[in-house]
Structure formats: C-alpha cells, structure tokens
C-alpha cells in the first residue's frame, strides 16, 4: 500500500478494516462500498475503495471522490496521479493495438473487419486523424467517406491530400454519373443503380444520359445475380494495356530473326511508345474514371468526351508510330529481298 487510510470509527468500518487487514479483499470492498453508499461524505470509505476496487476506473472515481471531500490529502493526490498515468498508458496500448489490428485487416483486404475496428477506434479516440483517414479509405459510401475526411481535416486542416480528396468526393456527390461509376466499381449495385437512374434523367449531355441508361440496363441485368465478381479497375487498365505491346513484341521478334540478342534498341525504345499509347487508349475507352485519370484531370477523369477523345487519339498515334517504324524497316528489307529474288539469288 502506498498510503495508510485513516482509522475507522463505526462498526461497519471496523469490520471492513479488519477484513482488509486479514486479506479478505472482496468482503472489505463490499463493506466499504456499503459504507460509502450509506454515507457519501465518508472520506475513509472512499480512500479504502480507491485501494480495493478491481478496475482502474473505479479506483480513480473513488479517489476523486475522496479528494473532493479533502482536497488537501497529499497521498491521495499522489496515488491519483499514478493511477491517471497508468490509465493513460493502458489506453495508449489499447489504442495502438486496435489501430494495428485495423491496419492489418486493411492490408489483408478484409475491408469489413477493418471498417468495424476503425469505427470502434474512432468512437473511443475521436481525435485521431490517422484513424479517420484510414476509415475514409475503407467505407464504401461516399457520404461516409466525406464525413471521415471532414473529421480528419477538423483535426488537421493542413492535410492537403485529404483536402483534395474531400473536394473530389464532394464534387462527385453532385455528379450522379460519376457516383454511379464509383459505386459500380465497388460492386455496390443498389447505390450504383440509384445514381445512374438520376444521371439518366438529369445529365446535361445526351452522351452522358445514354451512358447512364446503358449502365442502368446492365446493372439491372446483374442486380439479382448473386456472386457477380467485379474486376479491379487497375487490373482492367493493365489487362487492356498489354494487348498491343504483345503484338508489337511478336512482330519485333519476327523482325529480329527470332533472336532476342539481335533486337534493335530503336525498336525496343519504340515499344515504350506502344505501351504508353496502349495505356492511354485503354484508359480512354475502358476505365475513364480510374484513379490515375482523376488524379490528373480532376474528379471526372476522362469521362468528358473532349479529353477522352484527345487522349484516345494521342494513344492511337503513339501506338501507330512504332508499328509504322517497324513495318517501314521490314518493307526496306523486303525490297532488298525482292531485288535478290528477281535476280534469282534465292530459291523459288
């Protein structure tokens, strides 16, 4: 014991004290509790309860009550400050553990579990900016993401990245088409359907209304089918990017006499153009609202017809130029062979 509680005068206190000294903590606790309830101004009872209570919070409450009755008790004050420190340390440990668990769940792709843990976390520690930011990543609903980011920004208004994301989401909330695409990519068919429904009626351009109607039809087609697997937009972008480079690679391989060691560096370098062009075409045609485009061109990404057409055309040109270079080299060689062929230098 860090301090000696005062000696009791009445019989219940005497019994409680005897029980405490005999090591019968539970009995002593019950007796002191009964005494404190009967006489809330009994300083001795509160001081003993501060020692005998099981939980840290109960000990603190008991000692706070004791200090309210006698603010000049230095031992109680010292004990209370030690308990406060202990409580802070325990809280800190719990907090770190919970956050680590949520991070692990996020990394493992268990979004639901991460969401559950983070909600628990922010309920207990609402002043944690990192937790709000993480929560904004795992919740699917745009409105929930906005709330999480707003809370993070209240705690740290200088977080530019969070601010930019918040602006994008707020803009998206008023753009039903973008909202529909956002939900559809995440497999939230009911919300996507609702957003496309609004977009099909209210979008400013005919092309956007048509797009929304088409998406609406395809969602209704899928809506009742359970187990539909949505492809990750990044996977779609990469998948569609790979096609033309594979064709180009085969052509370069044929051109270089099926020998990787004689590959022309010029043609290899031109292959980068095919990859870049293919990425632009795939992005413009199949993933116009991919994160890559929204980070470059704002929340609407490439969904606006003008940047989509421009980048799509640029992509086609970037693909066509290396193919043109390769075919012109092949054509030069063909002319040379043609010359030899007609001079009967090759068997035919």
């Amino acid at each position, binding site marked *: 014991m860090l301090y000696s509680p005062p000696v009791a005068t009445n019989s219940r206190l005497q019994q409680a004290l005897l029980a405490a000294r005999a090591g019968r903590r539970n009995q002593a606790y019950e007796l002191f509790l009964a005494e404190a309830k009967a006489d809330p101004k009994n300083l001795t009872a509160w001081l003993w309860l501060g020692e005998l209570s099981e939980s840290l919070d109960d000990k603190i409450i008991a000692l706070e009550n004791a200090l309210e009755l006698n603010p000049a008790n230095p031992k109680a004050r010292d004990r209370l400050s030690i308990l406060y420190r202990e409580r802070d340390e325990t809280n800190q440990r719990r907090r770190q553990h919970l956050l680590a668990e949520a991070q692990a769940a996020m990394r493992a792709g268990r979004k639901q579990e991460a969401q559950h843990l983070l909600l628990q976390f922010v309920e207990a520690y609402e002043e944690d900016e990192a937790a709000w930011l993480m929560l904004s990543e795992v919740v699917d609903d745009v409105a929930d993401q906005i709330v999480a980011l707003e809370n993070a920004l209240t705690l740290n208004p200088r977080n530019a990245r969070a601010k930019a994301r918040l602006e994008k989401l707020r803009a998206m909330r008023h753009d039903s088409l973008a909202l529909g695409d956002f939900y559809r990519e995440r497999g939230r068919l009911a919300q996507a359907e609702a957003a496309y429904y609004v977009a099909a009626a209210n979008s400013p351009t005919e092309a956007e209304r048509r797009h929304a109607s088409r998406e609406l039809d395809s969602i209704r087609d899928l809506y009742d089918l359970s187990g*539909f697997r949505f492809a990750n937009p990044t996977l779609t972008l990469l998948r569609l990017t790979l096609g033309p480079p594979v064709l180009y690679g085969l052509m370069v391989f044929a051109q270089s006499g*099926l020998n990787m060691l004689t590959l022309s560096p010029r043609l290899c370098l031109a292959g980068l153009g095919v990859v870049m062009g293919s990425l632009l075409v795939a992005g413009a045609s199949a993933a116009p609202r991919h994160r890559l485009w929204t980070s470059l061109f704002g929340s609407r990404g490439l969904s606006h017809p003008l940047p989509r057409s421009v980048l799509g055309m640029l992509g086609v040109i970037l693909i066509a130029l290396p193919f043109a270079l390769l075919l012109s080299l092949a054509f030069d060689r063909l002319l040379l062979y043609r010359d030899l062929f007609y001079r009967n230098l090759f068997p035919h």
Partner: protein
Amino acid sequence: MFPFNDTEPNRYSLLPYMTIAIVLLNAVITGFEYRFWRTDPSFLREVIYLYGANPYLVGAGMGGGALSSLTSTFLHGDIIHLLGNMLALWVFGRRVEDACGPWRFLVFYLTCGLFADVVSSIIYARTDIPSIGASGAIFGVMGAYLILFPQGRIRTFVPIFFIPTFPKIRAFWVVLYFLAVQIIPALNVLFKKEDYGVNYWAHLGGFVACFSIFLFLRPQAFQRYFSKMPI
C-alpha cells in the same frame, strides 16, 4: 465435319464489323491474286514467295520479317483455302469479336496469326517454303471461342454415308475435333520429318495464342467470365 453457323445471338453489338472486314479483305486480296494470275501465271508464285512467311528467311533475319508475317495471314493459295478459312472465321469470330469489341478483336486476331507464324518459323526453321493463310489466326479465334463459349452450339454439316445432315454440335466437341486432327500430323512433322503441305504447327501455335484472349475482352465480358455467367 464442316461448321457453318453459330446459332447463339450477340450480346454487346449488332454486327461483327471487324470479322466482316477481315473476310472482305482476304477475299479482295485473293481476288487480286487471281486477277493477275490469269494474265501472268508466275505472279501467284512471286506473291507467295515475297509476302508469305518463309521460315528460313524469318530465322535468318532476311526478307520481309514482321511484314511478311503479317501479310502471309491475308494470303490464300486458292478459293477452297480461302472459303474454308473465312467460313471458320465467320462461325467462330462473330461472338469472340462481340466479347472483345472490333479493334481489340483485330489486335487479338493478328496476335494469334503472328504467334502461329513464330511457332511455325521455329519448327520449320530449315525450310524455305513460305507459308500462307489465315488458319493460324483462325485457330486462335477457335481456341478463344472454346474458352469463352464452350457450351455454344455450332450448326455443322456432317455427311453420313453421302446423306447430308446439319446437327447442332457443342462448340467444345467441334473445336476439340479440329484440334485433335492437327496433333498426329504435327507430331509426324516433328519426329518423322513428313511433309503434308499443311502448316499444322502454325495451327497449334495459333491455338496456344488463344489464351491471350483475356487481354482483349471487354471489361463486362471479363467480369461475366470470372463470375461464371454467360458472356
């Protein structure tokens, strides 16, 4: 067994523009071959030697290289060769194009043709006889059809004791039949050095290239495939 129609409807597009364009292009090129062949009988042989894929020249880094590999896919030796290939392209290409979209289908078709040509150039490395025809690319398209629509039904012409019948046969069996009839001659070419006048290894090469179809599928078709839904 001659497949001549796929009985299932399209899902995404009304007409297979690219399949039709490839069929027309092949027909026009073969028409030109015949047109000039009639006035100059050596013309066809020259076209085949210059624009066909000659494995020896491809391996030696001579001749048209990538260009010949590409042009050989659009050349045919005679009308029967053209008709057989184009019929197969029409039967199997229509729905594969529907699942990819026209431009991606074109790149897929050429990729299969190029891969078939690379495989045949490796296997027949010492041969200087050029190979022509779209069959390598078409085997790729057939393979893609098998992957995407194994349950599709193909209307097929099967003469039984000179009596023509037109049963609808599962695509799985039709494609498997065409694949099976390539394997033994291909092995004979490899181990017994037999010469059939048909580039069986290009067919098998094209068929292997069919797995690249996953790089060309529309996002919706890709998702439907992995959700085990009809594409």
